[in-house]
């Protein structure tokens, strides 16, 4: 059986191998380790400059001295509220360093995937959509790949739905945060951006033939990429920035609450009131899924919920309660022992990750395509 990547990845790598001097990575390719708190870091970067939260996004407006609302579980058999779950996954490999003339740069290969899982009435899950894409990440232009070779490479990869050559110097909201860092980190940011784009591309497919009132959970925040704002969709982040401060109440001296104090006081099966972000475009709040006594640390077992607000209109308390109650019910079952974020992980999202990863090409298949020309041994006098 032919290697499924041989029709598009192999020609691209052959082209690079023939035109560049390649210093291959040890063993052909080295898998990049994902930063353990990537989601939290991204949230921190994306909320930079918005650390001070000063407004509520809930109606009726909450009182500053009553920031928690009890939201007991609303189980699937009472109200099957969340029926779709979207997530994305990434695995990236450092293939080697390319030398073209006097320029040297890393070659990164990333495998990105996104999937929508539908939960049926009886609780069983079915894959609704599952997409996968390979990215070859290189810098173009000054300090990177020459334009001539770049154009040749693009010509060899006509189907960008399957295989895309990405210029890591083309900045986006995530790779911008890595500017000036190791090009491999920049490539990582770029790959994450592409993954989010893939996730977003699936959202509208959910509602093509579906009831527009069915709710969907997107793993992570809503602020990366162009997330559609018209669908009943929430972003649920397991890890989030720990630096916001809340200034609540009117008057000259509003009540100041840091996030640790806010969440440490959040009881089990409860939510905080909704706060405003992005000038009122997003309402967000926190929900405690697990009792603190079951966990090591008071901030564990809490998720951050984000909802787009059309016309900056605050969310009604009833709707925020409903969303939160349905979320609390999602705490069981949990991927305890498989994922260290089990305390705030939603099992359907975990299964979406599994569905994506099971659709990835294995390391063996990838390695089967990576055959660089044997490097010259010893130095050169040139």
């Amino acid at each position, binding site marked *: 059986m032919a290697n499924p990547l041989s029709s598009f990845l192999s020609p691209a790598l052959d082209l690079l191998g023939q035109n560049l001097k390649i210093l291959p990575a040890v063993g052909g390719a080295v898998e990049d380790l994902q930063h353990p708190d990537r989601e939290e870091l991204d949230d921190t970067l994306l909320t930079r400059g918005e650390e001070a939260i000063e407004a509520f996004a809930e109606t009726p407006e909450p009182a500053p001295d009553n920031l928690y609302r009890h939201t007991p579980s609303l*189980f699937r058999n009472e109200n099957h509220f969340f029926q779709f779950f979207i997530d994305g996954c990434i695995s990236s490999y450092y293939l080697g360093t390319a030398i073209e003339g006097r320029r040297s740069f890393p070659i990164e290969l990333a495998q990105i995937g996104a999937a929508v899982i539908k939960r049926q009435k009886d*609780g069983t899950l079915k894959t609704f959509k599952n997409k996968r894409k390979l990215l070859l990440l290189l810098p173009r232009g000054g300090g990177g790949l020459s334009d001539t070779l770049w154009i040749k490479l693009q010509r060899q990869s006509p189907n960008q739905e399957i295989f895309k050559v990405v210029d890591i110097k083309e900045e986006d909201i995530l790779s911008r945060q890595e500017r000036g860092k190791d090009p491999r980190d920049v490539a990582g940011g770029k790959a994450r951006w592409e993954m989010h784009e893939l996730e977003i591309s699936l959202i509208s497919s959910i509602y093509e033939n579906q009831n527009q009132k069915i709710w969907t959970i997107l793993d992570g925040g809503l602020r990366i990429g162009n997330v559609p704002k018209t669908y009943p969709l929430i972003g649920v982040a397991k890890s989030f920035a720990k630096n916001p401060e809340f200034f609540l109440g009117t008057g000259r001296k509003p009540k100041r609450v840091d996030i640790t104090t806010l969440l440490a006081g959040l009881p089990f099966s409860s939510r905080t009131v909704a706060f405003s972000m992005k000038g009122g475009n997003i309402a967000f709040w926190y929900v405690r899924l697990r009792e603190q006594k079951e966990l090591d640390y008071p901030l564990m077992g809490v998720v951050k919920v984000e909802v787009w607000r059309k016309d900056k209109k605050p969310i009604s308390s009833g709707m925020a309660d409903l969303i939160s109650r349905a979320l609390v019910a999602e705490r*069981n*079952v*949990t991927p305890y022992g*498989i994922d260290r974020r089990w305390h705030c992980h939603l*099992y359907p999202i975990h299964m979406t990750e599994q569905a994506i990863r099971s659709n990835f090409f294995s390391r063996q298949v990838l390695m089967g395509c990576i055959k660089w020309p044997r490097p010259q041994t010893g130095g050169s006098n040139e």
Partner: protein
Amino acid sequence: MNKERNIQKIGKTSATDRNPNTSDKFNFWLSPGVIVNPFDIVEVEQVSHEGKSKTFGLVTILEHSTDSPTHLANFISSNFGELEEEPNTPRQGTTIANVNVLSNDKAIYMPIPSEKTVKFADEKEIQVALGIDAMKPEDRIPAGLIKMSNETAAVAYIDRRYVLGPESAHINISGISGLATKTSYAMFLIQSILQKTPEKEKDKIAVILLNVKHGDLLQIDQRPERKFSPEEMEMWESLGLEPKPFDSDKVHYFLPRGRDGQPNSFLTPDIYHTYAYDLDSTADKLDLLFAQVPDTYFTLESIIGEIKEGMRNREPEFRNVNSWDNLLNGKPLFDPDKRATVAKWRDIRGSSIGVFRRHIRRMIKTTQSGIFVDSRSAHEKILTDEIMNIQGGHTYVVDIARLCEHEQMLVFGDLLRAIYSLKAETPEERKTPIPEKIIFFVDELNKYAPKGERVAPLTQNVLEIAERGRSLGINLISAQQFMSAVHPRVTGNCATKILGRSGSAEVLQSDYRFLDKEIKSNVTRLSKGELLLSHAVYRQPVKIIFPKPAYRQQES
């Protein structure tokens, strides 16, 4: 559930890094809602040199696995042990069936690739899977019904050539499956063999049955008192057999004589013969009486040998020894004048003679059931003589149920020797043809051929039948609770083994090494009426059911 949905496709094969498919085994996951049980036979498409082939497999064990790495994770997933809480999303899990490859219809034994659709085999495919399609129709003996989870049923045929020879012979039935299950099955199989024998061949098979429990086999020519249920009738019909008792005019019952001269049996059939043993007819079988008596220095064996030779050659010393009483209380072993055992006889010390006499007294006088007589009446038969005259097409039932153990040993050994002698050294005086095949059924074989280093004369007779019977046309159908208690050379020579439910300690014995570990665990779970059939033609044992006997049984 399968029947309602008329499911044929049941899952897909699955090969993983740690659990690959091999030429012998493969795994498949089950589609939700499908019910599969161990011993179901499945079919998967496989490659071949021309077109495609089909690989058939036997489900051995089913496992359910989830993504939970520990039980603690499941505890936590129930909200830390909350019994009432239902998970919003059930944990992902799948049932995996482990399958032993039975055969491929084009002899391709490549491992089954992953992701191949698995189906239940249909009736025809089950027979292909087991190799039944390769048996000649006239050689097929119905041995039970295979019933699968999707209600598909197929007859498990065994090959006559491997049951009655010449390829192999002998059947052993083992297990603790329940009241009279083993006997019922043996009788079903004998009826099946007889009914499926072509008319012109029927007169060439004689059957000897040893009745060892109650009156189990003393009414085999009578119709059962109860009526067959429609399901039972359907089963008989599926098997292609007629539910009828043995022909009355061809069944002969031999009952042991009791102390009062009447038959010593749990039941007395309308027509029967009584048998008894006098010294004259027993002298050359005395060793059988001593089968269970320890004889470390072979002194008892020497005495028995001397007596046997003396009586056969009518030596002067034995001229007056014509009854058990004479043997015990007269010369040459006893001195009536001194009223004591002789001090020495033919270099055998008096103390040994004394031991022999004490045993004989115990067996013939004090603990006998009435079978030993000093002189037989005219209607009391000698079993050996009767066996030497057996006719093909007839069934002979010898009752030993109420006999003492040493008497049972004697009768069993006597029958074996007579059959062996009939087939090995045809008596000159015999006028009618000797049956080509003799089927001999015995229950509680462990009594007569126990496992152990010491091979008693009786065990030796059983071993000879097991090892040489096939060539002589003697076929042993034996049964016992524990196969491990029987001499391995006997069970090892049985080409067909039937297992009923057995304990886990029993199936761990080396005698069961022909079974896979997974199948062994299934043997411990067989229900009453379910048996495992291991036949020389089959690559794997199969689970079968069989109908209740078509003859009358004594109510327990």
